[in-house]
């Protein structure tokens, strides 16, 4: 098992090295196949590990070598596979494999296809490092590594500066979060003198709830999570990140990397449970992000941006779940979300592919007939994400909603509203793209074509997963056994045990309410949006509040005005004024002053020896005189 866990890291890295180094000489088809093969092997390995940990309830520990070790600090490269990591392994490798295969078709025409697969393999390597690490610093390696890959892949088409700007923005915003994470690590180390996750959690679990140190630690970790998982205030990079190729959006910016923040918090669940204030902050931030993401998504016109804001919203929803203490609920939704959001992105990619790069939904419409298979898949994804039974989204959302209602009626309603917004923007997207009469631009476009099988089949697999994944855990109404909860129980047992609130279950009526009311509203919303979006001639220009929404609450503009511009201004001031005028001025001024004084003092050299002698004697007299009186 130890060997397998190491191989998990070795294979994608080898894939990266081989594809990366042989870029120039490699046949463009080979790289895709090689890259996929590597991930396929990885999937098999992960399946073995998954089976191992789920059957034996043991964790696999592997120590590779000491990374940072001297005096009293020792941080090894070490791998821990427990059920949580095993679950993430399955998601990363599973979804990763499908997206790799999809990419073979999607990136076929691109000249940089080899580079693309190299990066993708590197990403998988770092993502696996992240979930497999047994200590926070190694987790941080993966954390930064995926950020790097994200940077490289967003800016994949680097000839256009818009893409590069998006990539840079993503990296820098992530770095802001990373600083928080790093500070969290420092505090962890200062407090517990160890960065080993299990050790830290064990030591922390005896600390009192509400401890200030724990509060700051968790806050810092959460700041790290907001960067990576695109939460307020660091979420604006995610929509921009759609500049990258669509498979990248699907893999990195929907299914895996952005969930790293959730993984981090779930991993450190004990710390968070003991710090109720942070939990509340997470709850509020998550809810706010989910609301804003959802609202903005309704008013976007770029197919990928809609999905991006949907992701932001869903991530916010996940953080809500974490804030509510429903760690396994969050993980459950994370899993299903990975499936259907990846599916949606890939389907969107398929649409874009079919339209040769068109992304504006105003220029789409009526695609239902032209690309029926994609349409079918897209519908499945939409239903799944909207939470309509029996597809996966319904079940996972249900868990979170229940948790929200258990927390309080207000929170429950907010959560419900958030989940309902999903329906609005997703069905708007669906209707505009597939049902609305064809746009003029589209009519002029002649060769709209269905994607090749290498792209559709992976989507089909994801679609199937989106349909059935939910049955892992039926709502409490229908089933006594909570499959998913039980599976993750060993991981979260300590945390749930520490959670002080006694779990008073909801009564049956409420549960039915939670179950049925949203469904009814969803149905109504579908009808309304059908009327609104399919029949409307053109999407009208936004105005008033909706204009604010269409412009994403002007977050970018505010950041630009508050941070970017002043920083540039300060930079110029420093460079032009402080450095050149003041500091260099002082230094050069000293030199110039010396020259000036020298020029004047030169006159003292009269050349008259008698004068020199007089000066000398009287100076000696003066010195001796001062020697006496002092």
């Amino acid at each position, binding site marked *: 098992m130890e060997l397998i866990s190491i191989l998990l890291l070795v294979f994608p890295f080898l894939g990266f090295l081989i594809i990366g180094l042989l870029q120039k000489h490699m046949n463009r088809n080979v790289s895709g196949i090689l890259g996929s093969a590597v991930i396929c092997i990885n999937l098999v390995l992960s399946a073995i590990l998954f089976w191992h940990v789920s059957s034996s309830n043991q964790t696999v520990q592997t120590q590779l070598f000491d990374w940072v070790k001297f005096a009293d600090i020792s941080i090894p490269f070490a791998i821990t596979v427990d059920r949580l990591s095993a679950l993430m392994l399955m998601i990363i490798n599973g979804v990763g494999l499908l997206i790799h295969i999809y990419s073979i078709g999607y990136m076929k025409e691109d000249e940089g296809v080899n580079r693309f697969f190299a990066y993708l393999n590197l990403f998988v390597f770092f993502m696996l490092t992240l979930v497999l690490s047994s200590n926070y610093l190694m987790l941080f390696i993966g954390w930064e590594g995926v950020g790097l890959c994200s940077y490289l892949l967003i800016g994949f088409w680097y000839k256009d500066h818009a893409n590069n700007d998006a990539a840079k923005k993503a990296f820098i915003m992530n770095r802001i979060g990373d600083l928080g994470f790093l500070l969290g690590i420092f505090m962890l180390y200062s407090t517990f003198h160890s960065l080993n996750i299990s050790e830290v959690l064990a030591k922390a679990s005896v600390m009192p709830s509400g401890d200030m140190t724990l509060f700051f630690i968790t806050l810092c970790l959460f700041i790290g999570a907001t960067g990576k998982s695109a939460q307020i205030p660091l979420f604006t990079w995610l929509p921009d990140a759609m500049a990258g190729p669509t498979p990248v959006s699907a893999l990195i910016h929907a299914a895996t990397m952005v969930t790293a923040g959730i993984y981090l918090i779930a991993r450190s669940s004990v710390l968070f449970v003991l710090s109720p204030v942070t939990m509340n902050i997470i709850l509020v931030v998550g809810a706010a992000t989910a609301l804003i993401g959802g609202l903005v998504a309704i008013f976007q016109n770029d197919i990928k941006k809609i999905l991006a804001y949907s992701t932001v919203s869903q991530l916010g929803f996940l953080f809500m779940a974490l804030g509510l203490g429903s760690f396994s609920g969050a993980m459950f939704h994370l899993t299903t979300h990975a499936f259907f959001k990846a599916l949606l992105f890939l389907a969107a990619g398929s649409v874009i592919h079919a339209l040769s790069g068109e992304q504006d939904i105003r220029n789409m419409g009526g695609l239902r007939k032209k690309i029926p298979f994609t349409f079918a898949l897209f519908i499945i994804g939409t239903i799944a994400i909207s939470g309509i039974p029996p597809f996966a989204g319904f079940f996972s959302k249900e868990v979170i909603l229940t948790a929200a209602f258990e927390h309080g009626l207000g929170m429950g309603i907010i959560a419900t509203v958030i989940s309902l917004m999903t329906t609005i923007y997703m069905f708007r997207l669906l209707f505009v793209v597939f049902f609305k009469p064809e746009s003029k631009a589209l009519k002029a476009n002649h060769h709209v074509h269905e994607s090749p099988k290498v792209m559709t089949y992976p989507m089909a697999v994801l679609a199937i997963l989106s349909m059935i994944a939910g049955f892992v855990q039926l709502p409490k109404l229908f089933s006594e056994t909570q499959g998913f909860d039980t599976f993750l129980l060993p991981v979260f047992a300590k945390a749930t045990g520490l959670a002080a609130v006694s779990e008073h279950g909801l009564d049956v009526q409420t549960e039915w309410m939670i179950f049925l009311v949203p469904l009814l509203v969803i149905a109504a919303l579908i009808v309304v949006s059908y009327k609104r979006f399919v029949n409307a001639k053109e999407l009208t220009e936004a105005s008033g509040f909706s204009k604010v929404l269409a412009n994403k609450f002007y977050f970018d503009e505010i950041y630009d005005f508050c941070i970017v511009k002043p920083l540039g201004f300060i930079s110029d001031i420093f460079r032009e004024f402080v450095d050149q005028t003041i500091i260099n001025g002082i230094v050069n001024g000293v030199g110039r002053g010396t020259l000036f004084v020298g020029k004047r003092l030169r006159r003292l050299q009269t050349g008259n020896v*008698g004068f020199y002698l*007089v000066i000398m*004697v*009287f100076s*000696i*007299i003066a010195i*001796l*005189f001062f*020697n*006496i009186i002092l």
Partner: protein
Amino acid sequence: MLSQYLFFFLSFVAIVSALMVLLSKKPIHSVLYLTLTFFTLAGHYILLNAQFLAVVHIIVYAGAIMVLFLFTVMLLNLNIEGEFQKSTIMKFIAAIGGGMIFLVLIGTLKSFDVATVGNPELTQIGLVKNLGKTLYSDYLLPFELSSILFLSAMVGAVMLGKKDKQ
């Protein structure tokens, strides 16, 4: 008491002849008065039990240095009488300067304490034997260096004295 009288006598002669160095018009007279001063100083050395120094002093100063001065004056025919006198204001300044430096020196030196710190066993430190021991043990390196200094001074003097080939 004898030594006291001797001291006063020598000092008196020394100061008078030193003044005469300045006051005489012809350089050659100055040289001769200076030689006289040096002899009185040699007497002082003997008074202070510094016999070796006294001898060296006479050899070096009276014997070598003053002869050099005399040679220069005579060979170059420099014995020109007071053709360049300084202005009275300059002399006035010189007098003030000299007086002030006298006062300041007294002021500086008068408070010196002269407790015996040297080796109390050592008697007659001024003799060649004792001085030689110190010189060749503690001050060997400076001694050797001073010989180099002499050599270079010799070479330098010869170089300077050579007539330019023109």
